[in-house]
């Protein structure tokens, strides 16, 4: 008799879901959600239904019907919004989030270390989160590559990858690459100033350009040599994975996500990226971004930030909880992220803070955790709003998502219910009853004797 039914269910959901679920063709599966207060984010909110066919939203409207054999869930007036998207996280990875051995580590890749068994994925689902961008930490001016995952809990590492989402390169400026807060631990390392941090990036760019030139030159000579008979082929240059990765940034294959706090480093890096034609998708944290909104708008750089986490280090001091709203109101694309597995479970609480601090409208507040992160992650064509044709990534709450007493009740990913609070409570109740019963009855003799 399993004493831990709850946990067994969790594992069952995980293992069972993995087998057959994301493997089998989902096109036939149909699900009708009825009677919700729907907040599509795109378009007006309404009271009504959502029809899901396969992994996509087929239709939104009032009084929808579906044929026989369709699963129907009556939401009983609960609130429905697009699945929450966390644009800055480090979950679902194993073996360390930072490669600290060298200054520039563009060649490392979180795609190589995805751990689909991370329990934090499940916990994120309990908070209504359906997609995340998970990535390298902030130890290096140019760190490794990041990836967008859809939280298909139960799937393999391959299953989690959000197909078609742009891959990213994680940069970091300021105190972390300067190692300002770990003085005395280990050998001192360049750079120790923000000037050095930017120079490290520029130097790497120039090296990558040289590398690209080397290879272009080789390609040209090899081509020519092949045309000639009996000509000796030139020796190819060494393949350098680090230079390749930086070259990919210059070629626009990777979107840059740059961790930065202070206004001057943000302004300077925007100029750098403009100079090199690099796609700087967003600043991470950007707690002083409210000081350079004109520049952010001009350069079309988004900011993905905290609601009000501050004062943990100097560069996070000169900021305010109104920062997100202030930037948004001045035209910056703002997303609210977690950067933390625990905070990921209550991003909706953080979004609510932008209403109070800075006066965002409820719609704008909800955008910071749905459409806006989708845009800066390059996945807004597929998700981030509730619209026909988009992925059925949906979060259901018992009260308005920005209500202080709201609790996430259900999370749907690609049309499949991956978290159901009612079921969780029922399973927990059964498990605790079983445990109580087992404690009361005398233990049977061990079979092995």
């Amino acid at each position, binding site marked *: 008799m399993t004493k831990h039914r709850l946990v067994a269910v969790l594992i069952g959901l995980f293992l069972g879901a993995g087998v057959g679920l994301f493997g089998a063709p989902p096109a036939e599966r149909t699900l009708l959600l009825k009677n919700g207060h729907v907040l599509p984010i795109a378009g007006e909110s309404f009271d009504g239904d959502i029809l899901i066919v396969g992994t996509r939203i087929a239709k939104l409207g009032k009084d929808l019907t579906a044929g026989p054999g369709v699963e129907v869930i009556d939401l009983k007036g609960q609130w429905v919004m697009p699945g929450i998207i966390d644009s800055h996280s480090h979950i679902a990875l194993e073996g360390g989030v930072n490669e600290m051995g060298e200054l520039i580590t563009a060649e490392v890749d979180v795609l190589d270390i995805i751990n689909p068994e991370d329990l934090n994925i499940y*916990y994120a689902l309990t908070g209504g989160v359906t997609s995340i961008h998970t990535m390298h930490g902030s130890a290096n001016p140019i760190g490794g590559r990041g990836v967008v995952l859809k939280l298909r809990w139960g799937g393999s590492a391959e299953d989690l990858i959000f197909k078609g989402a742009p891959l990213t390169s994680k940069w970091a400026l300021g105190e972390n690459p300067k190692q300002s807060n770990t003085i005395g631990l280990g050998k001192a390392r360049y750079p120790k100033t923000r000037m050095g941090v930017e120079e490290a990036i520029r130097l790497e760019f120039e090296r990558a350009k040289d590398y690209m030139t080397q290879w272009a030159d080789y390609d040209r000579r090899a081509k020519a040599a092949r045309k000639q008979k009996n000509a000796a082929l030139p020796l190819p240059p060494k393949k350098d994975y680090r230079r390749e990765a930086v070259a990919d940034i210059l070629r626009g294959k990777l979107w840059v996500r740059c961790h930065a706090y202070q206004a001057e480093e943000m302004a300077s890096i925007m100029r750098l990226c403009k100079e090199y034609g690099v796609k700087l998708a967003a600043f991470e944290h950007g707690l002083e971004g409210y000081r350079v909104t004109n520049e952010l708008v001009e350069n079309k750089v988004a900011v993905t930030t905290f609601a009000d986490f501050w004062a*943990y280090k100097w560069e996070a001091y000169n900021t305010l909880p109104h920062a997100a709203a202030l930037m948004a109101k001045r035209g910056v694309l703002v997303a609210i992220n977690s950067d933390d597995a625990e905070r990921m479970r209550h991003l909706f*609480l953080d979004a609510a803070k932008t209403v109070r601090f800075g006066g965002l409208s409820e719609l704008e507040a909800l955008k910071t955790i749905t459409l806006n992160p989708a845009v800066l992650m390059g996945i807004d064509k597929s998700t981030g709003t509730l619209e026909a044709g988009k992925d059925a990534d949906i979060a259901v709450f018992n009260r308005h998502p920005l209500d202080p007493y709201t609790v996430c009740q259900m999370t749907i990913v690609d049309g499949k219910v991956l978290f159901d609070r009612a079921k969780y409570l029922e399973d927990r109740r059964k498990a605790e009853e079983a445990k109580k019963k087992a404690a009361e009855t005398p233990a049977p003799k061990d079979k092995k004797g």
Partner: protein
Amino acid sequence: MKKITLLVFILAFLAVLLPGETRAAGGGKSLLIKNATIVPVVGERIEAGQLLIRDGKIAGIGKSLPVPEDAEVIDAAGMFVYPGFIDAYSHFGLSEIGAIASTSDIREMGRENPELRAAWAINPGSVHFGTSRINGTTAALVTPSGGTFPGLSALVRMDGWTVEEMAVKEVATSLINFPMTPRPAGGEGGGQQQESKVDVTSKLVEKIKDYLREARHYLSLKKAAAAEPQVKAPQANRKYDALAPVLDGSLPVIISVEKDKDIELAIKFVKEEKLRAIFRGCGQGFKVADKIKASGIPVIIDSLYVGPSDPEDGYDAPFRNVVELAKAGVMICFSSGDDVGTGKDLPYHAARAVAYGLDHEAAIAALTINPARIFGLEPRLGSLEVGKDADLFITTGDPLDTRSEVKHLFIAGRHIDMKNTWDNLYERYKARPIK
């Protein structure tokens, strides 16, 4: 005589007329709040009520109060008046920026520091007082941290020129960190709690008991030496001296403990050592709620931005924990926890508990009258009653709601300027021209 009295009267009058800071409203002058919904916490709400502040105290509550003519009046139509919230565990004033050691005075070196007083080190000018009181926190327990005996906490108001002025109780409680009380894994890679072959927790508890035993021995020798000349007094030991009120039960001691087995051990420990204890944390308290209730020990709930102590407890364990402790009759109060930067979230933690089933009234009580009782300050704080200190606030809505705004805050009857560093930045950068 008459001349002097007249002069005094004129001077007093002038003092009142001269422009002063908005902090005035003390000494002599009264302030009336009218048309508000008054929530006294003890007793029924008063709709369209009035509350009179004078000389730093609540001078009157009712529907229609006799009010002096020169009283300042705040028309709080559509708003609510609550007693000021008491944050039951924080480090306000002891830390400015976490990563910068020179700004932090929370943790002293060493395991045993029962004599160190937070009150000696609290910086009244800390930015975090100003930013943490904006949602209605008027007083907070400020504690040192670290080691087994971190020191002595102070119960201070969230405003004042010096600690002396701010302190409601300069020495409010002592503290003990019980073994194996790591916070549950909030972030990624939170370590697996391995269980050792040897029962290390009991060994560590024994060490704590040994220390207390030594302290008792020292104190009784001291006492004996004072009574009889032939008994040699022991060499002065400030640490043991500081434990005297803890050991005789006159000073409560906050014991931080997390897991169910450790809570049971702690209850036993408290009984054996005859301490007046307050528990803090108790993430798995719901598993032994009846035992905690039976022990009579109140519980300070730590920040609820946290995961379950054990994945087996269920993802919502931290919130369920609060609800079940309250249901079992345990006296609970809320705290904003270790991060000085998020002090303003005190009511939001309470809101999480309400979301998962705690009564709204119980939540408000846990922010006001409960901590007042637990820290022995019920006569002065924790509710709106005539004669109590005027620590209160006026808010636009439910104080646990993120969307509500505290418009007025009073501490010891002083009308507090709510403008803080955030507001300054907001004003300044809002004004930058948009290109």
